[in-house]
């Protein structure tokens, strides 16, 4: 009930001075406000990430050389899965209470609204993961420079995860067993991010310069930034048709 009020308050449909780009901020601010009300979900995703990462030493054994060797891959795969689990949050509730249909009618362009929603989603999923990751890296015996590169990589890579995931989340809106399907659609598309992200940390471990990997991540980030809002809005229009 209160969520619906908040959405009405945050999406002013006034005829005067509508700046299309402001849609990004308006949507982001509204989604952030909603996310702050259900902080539990945010904490759950983080807890999932931590638990998932901690399972690996238990499964493989506490041998420190091996753990250090697999740390980049483990952290990245778990980050992928944690982000995947939060993706339904992007559009699900807005789809159910009809807010999404209003977004189509809003004076702001739909891609701008999508970008705003992605921004809010990243601030409440990818960013906390990146901030938390050094602690987990320490568990695996990673050192300062490795942790540094891992955080930078996650900061560059998790927005791409959100952006590609948004397309998938929009495509499966309202579909039965959508969560499983979402993984099927999105995980193969996450592979480049995984390779460059984990590769950056592995490069440091191997004593090689990681900047090439980070630049490639940055390139993916820019491409996703430009293209995915449009693809997501197309997917939303298909879902709401």
């Amino acid at each position, binding site marked *: 009930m209160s969520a619906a009020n908040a959405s009405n308050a945050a999406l002013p449909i006034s005829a005067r001075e509508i700046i299309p780009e402001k849609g990004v901020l308006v949507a982001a601010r509204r989604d952030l406000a909603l996310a702050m009300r259900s902080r539990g979900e945010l904490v759950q995703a983080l807890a999932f990430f931590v638990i998932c990462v901690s399972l690996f030493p238990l499964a493989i054994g506490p041998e420190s050389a091996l753990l250090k060797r697999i740390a980049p891959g483990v952290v990245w795969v778990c980050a992928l899965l944690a982000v995947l689990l939060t993706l339904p949050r992007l559009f699900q509730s807005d789809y159910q209470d009809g807010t999404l249909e209003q977004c189509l009618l809003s004076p702001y362009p739909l891609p701008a609204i999508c970008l705003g929603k992605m921004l809010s989603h990243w601030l409440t999923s990818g960013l906390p993961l990146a901030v938390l990751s050094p602690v987990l890296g320490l568990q695996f015996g990673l050192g300062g420079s490795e942790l540094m590169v891992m955080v930078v990589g996650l900061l560059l890579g998790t927005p791409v995860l959100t952006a*590609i995931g948004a397309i998938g989340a929009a495509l499966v809106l309202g579909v039965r067993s959508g969560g499983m399907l979402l993984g*099927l659609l999105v995980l193969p598309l996450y592979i480049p991010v995984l*390779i460059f992200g984990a590769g950056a940390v592995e490069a440091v471990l191997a004593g090689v310069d990681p900047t090439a990997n980070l630049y490639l991540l940055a390139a993916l980030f820019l491409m996703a930034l430009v293209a995915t809002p449009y693809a997501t809005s197309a997917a939303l229009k298909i*879902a709401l*048709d």
Partner: protein
Amino acid sequence: MALFKYSAPSAFYPLAGKLVPWFGAAAFVLGVVGLYIGLFVAPEDFQQGEVYRIIFIHVPTAWMGMFIYLVMAMYGVLALIYQTRLSAMMMEALAPTGAIFTALALWTGALWGKPTWGTYWAWDARMTSTLILLFLYIGYIALVNAIEDKKRADKAGALLVIVGSVNVPIIYFSVKWWNTLHQGASISVSGGNKMAMTMLLAMLIMALACWMYSIAVALCRVRAIILERERHTQWVREIKEVR
């Protein structure tokens, strides 16, 4: 434009029916010739011996797996821009064939890998990207089957394949990058440096056969899809198979 006439399912259904036997026959003849040349005429490879003959299946299926995904992406663009239902139906008809060819490429790659380099599976760049391509096919098929509203399923599938096809080069590049980073799994799949003329010929003929086969089977499947979707329309009740 005369071609646009056939973008209506009611006009395409009989046309496809007329084309299927021709493409089927072409596939059969080319397949027999290709297998004959590949198994009996082409000489033994001086390094790998007889086992190299797997490439006459492996390479054409791998090509078709990639090619069909590309064709699906083009149909996807048509489906989204021109809103032609037939394009989306063609995508749906092509996907299983593409997935089968991709799976066959992986299977034959594994069976070729064991005797030539001692392992069924290596995380080689090409094999890995083929595996990912199979995942993309599976994702498309799962999505289209999960959405009950056909109109929405068509468009969602089209968008997914377009997004996927944009990603394919990126995925391929990243996997190659990953492969060069982790030395040790790099394997040359090119089948020796100099291929005998007859080997190349057999491979090309087999590729053509697979191509013709894909067209025939996709046209046949799209006929079934057209009837399934249009079963409540009048023209379907007047076709000769039903009367």
